[in-house]
């Protein structure tokens, strides 16, 4: 506790109403309403320091905190053809995509990277709920396939952080086909005897849950994450009864045998290091500060090798 949390915050809380919240310095916890200093919140990986509520975190911020010294290399993802169905609802799909790209400052809803965690080489993928609800379309499918192929090629474990409202409707059947496609990717890992660890984050629902997000060797969830196939509203409409407290939340799934662990974000890194090292048969992790890792290996910039290969060509 410092003077800000003890003294300034209570006053700020009383001074500012929700609407008047200053955008650049403070955030309000979605759960308990406490005003949180931005720096404090990002240091806590977007977990409320007052109530422990886990807010969304971008894949880039997550990776920066996850990888040793924040150093990671992006794994290139082959670009799928854009707008395969020429989909149009109230807006054109390409316009929705542009808007999402601008808002999230990312190309798409998944980031794939390789690097070391506690000096353990891994490949990781994180889904971005902030990008069109993290929805699974062809790009996300390609990202998972690229990540798994990279993991197999470098004999590394694959860690996946899921977050999605489901499949991307604007890609119609081709979004649905990411269910079998990503399942094939998971099978590549299994056949190469490499660990596949899934961290389910809030929310993970629909076709994403019903494919790669439920096929991990070890299934971990962040506290209170909504994890389901059909959302609670759909179920309430179907069965016309109120659902129990905590239904479809991480702890509820743990109780029903659907998960291995529920782990707070702040402890995830250590836990992932420990689990991956044990599964890979490596020595126990070294505690304390590690010397700086070597800079990431950059491949020779010859155009042929730099061109990302489509999964079909490898």
């Amino acid at each position: 506790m410092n003077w800000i949390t003890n003294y300034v915050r209570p006053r700020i809380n009383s001074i500012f109403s929700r609407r008047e919240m200053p955008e650049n310095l403070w955030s309000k916890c979605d759960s308990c309403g406490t005003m949180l200093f931005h720096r404090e919140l990002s240091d806590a990986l977007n977990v409320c320091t007052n109530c422990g509520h886990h807010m969304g975190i971008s894949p880039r911020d997550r990776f920066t905190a996850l990888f040793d010294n924040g150093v990671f290399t992006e794994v290139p993802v082959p670009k799928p053809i854009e707008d395969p169905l020429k989909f149009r609802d109230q807006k054109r799909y390409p316009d929705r995509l542009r808007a999402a790209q601008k808002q999230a400052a990312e190309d798409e809803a998944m980031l794939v990277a390789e690097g070391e965690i506690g000096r353990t080489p891994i490949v990781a993928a994180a889904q971005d709920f902030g990008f069109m609800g993290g929805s699974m379309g062809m790009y996300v499918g390609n990202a998972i396939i690229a990540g798994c192929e990279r993991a197999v090629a470098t004999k590394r474990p694959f860690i996946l952080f899921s977050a999605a409202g489901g499949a991307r409707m604007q890609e119609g059947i081709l979004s649905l086909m990411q269910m079998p496609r990503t399942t094939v990717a998971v099978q590549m890992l299994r056949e190469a005897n490499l660990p596949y660890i899934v961290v389910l984050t809030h929310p993970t629902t629909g076709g994403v849950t019903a494919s790669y997000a439920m096929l991990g060797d070890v299934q971990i969830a962040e506290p209170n994450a909504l994890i389901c196939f059909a959302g609670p509203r759909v179920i309430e409409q179907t069965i016309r009864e109120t659902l129990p407290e905590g239904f479809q939340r991480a702890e509820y799934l743990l109780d029903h045998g659907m998960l291995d662990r529920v782990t707070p974000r702040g402890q995830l890194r250590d836990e992932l290091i420990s689990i991956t090292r044990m599964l890979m048969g490596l020595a126990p992790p070294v505690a304390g500060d590690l010397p700086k890792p070597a800079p990431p290996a950059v491949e020779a910039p010859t155009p042929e090798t730099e061109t990302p290969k489509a999964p079909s060509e490898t």
Partner: protein
Amino acid sequence: MMNYLDFEKPLAEIEGKAEELRALARRNEEMDVEAEAAALDQKAAEMLRELYRNLTPWRKCQVARHPDRPHCRDYIEALFTEYTPLAGDRNFADDHAVMGGLARFHDQPVMVIGHEKGHDTKTRIERNFGMARPEGYRKAVRLMEIADRFGLPVITLVDTPGAYPGKGAEERGQSEAIARSTEKCLQIGVPLISVIIGEGGSGGAVAFATADRLAMLEHSIYSVISPEGCASILWKDAEKMREAAEALRLTAQDLMKLGVCDLVVAEPLGGAQRDREAAIHDVGKAIASMLAPLKEASRADLIAARRRKYLDLGSKGLAA
């Protein structure tokens, strides 16, 4: 008594009139109505051809859900011999929304698995309208494993609005069950042939339809979400299902262009419900034609080709 869809109402009137005339003539022998009735028949036939010449995607959804369409049970009864149902997931229950078991197809032993919607109020409730729970998918996984071990081809018949969105289903791991079923489809070293005979609803359909060869009946659909669901999310208005059905490209014809479907099986004029026997017969022929070239393939080749098929999917859009 025929069930008519809303867009078939004018047709229902003409067919009804012809039927009335003939009924009248049966009661009154002096009346000669045949010429008039035949003219009405003619008119009805023309109208039927016209209506079904170019069904809109939404109308196809309606036909795909038609209560009189042949269902899984009807296909199994007509196309297979020695059908021996195998029940249960060895864990919780037997799900009646999924039927399956050993059977012979043209004398060859196979494993047949499918969604069954039921045909009247009682059986529809019993079958949960073809919406499977985790037990259904786990039973399917178990059956596919048996097939894999004993070298029996697997034939799946897909007809579901989607997996059941219920409290117990979620608690028992609906997502995991679907994921494992899809995974099993991609693991077995025996031929896997799938036919969408009505509705291919989202993940609940993927769990069975991930196959070496996928055929679809001419008026069947396969979609990531129901048009109604899509409309209420993207248009904020469930009544915009016609627009959604159009945009989703869920017809057999569009899925053929996208490379998801390998074969479209033509339906009798007016849909499978108008001539159930003919529809069933043609599905039988389609299964035989898809199965034949796979019979000699090795386990490893089958698995590799199936995975390749799905990895390559979507590399071309509708333009291709």
